[in-house]
């Protein structure tokens, strides 16, 4: 599924930030839309951004690059980026790229709220 729309299906305010729920494959077609959505969220300088990837069956390096960019912005402003709910195939992309120690990755949304 490479419809560029609706990559972010839910956006919910947290006590200290924002929860973003993604859906569908995140690839070269959909990464620009994801980047745009996340950059808009970062404009408000949230202390915590949680990205729920449980609805993402495939993420390629363009999606990973988008999340690295968000991570760097968050770090530079003293904020956090937490990823949760990674499916096995998406988890493997982060493992292959040796990024599991770079990102804060937790199992579910509840864990992400306090990670």
């Amino acid at each position, binding site marked *: 599924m490479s419809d560029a729309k609706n990559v972010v299906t839910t956006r919910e305010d947290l006590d200290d930030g924002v929860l973003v729920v993604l859906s569908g494959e995140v*690839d*070269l077609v959909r990464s620009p839309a994801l980047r745009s959505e996340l950059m808009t969220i970062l404009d408000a300088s949230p202390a915590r951004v949680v990205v729920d990837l449980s609805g993402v069956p495939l993420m*390629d*390096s363009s999606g*990973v*690059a988008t999340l690295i960019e968000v991570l760097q912005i968050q770090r530079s402003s003293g904020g956090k980026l937490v990823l949760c709910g990674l499916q096995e195939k998406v988890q493997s*992309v982060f493992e*292959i*790229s040796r990024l599991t120690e770079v990102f804060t990755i937790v199992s579910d949304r509840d864990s992400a709220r306090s990670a």
Partner: protein
Amino acid sequence: MDASEEIVIRFFSQPRNFCAVRAAAEAAALAWRVDEVSAGQVKLALTEALANVAKHGYQGRTDQPICVRLAPEQRDGRPGLAITIEDRCKDVDLEKIKSRPLDEIRPGGLGVHIIEQTMDEVEYTTNPGGEGVRLRMCKFAGPLERNAD
């Protein structure tokens, strides 16, 4: 390989086309008895390879030709498939197609690394006609040979 089993897909370098092509490759892998995890890796590797052709080879042009060939392949009794991606990109230096150091935490440059890590065999050559690049990559059922150690 029985030539009658080869699947050939020709399409333009419009990234919206890639979704259907990678789905076909994953389905072919499963049909040719590649396990589900490996078939998922085939899908990911093809996604990265096509993105590289579109972004770097054709520099974002969406009207350029790409041909993907899928064929059953075996190695040491393990079923698998070979994927060949042919483009008409000009002035590509094959020596420059390589992964970047992973200790650099920055966006971009991970595609070649992901391809190399997920596929058992990866080979870039120039097309026989002299124009464009041919990437042939194979995946076989079971654990990765190169990661066996």
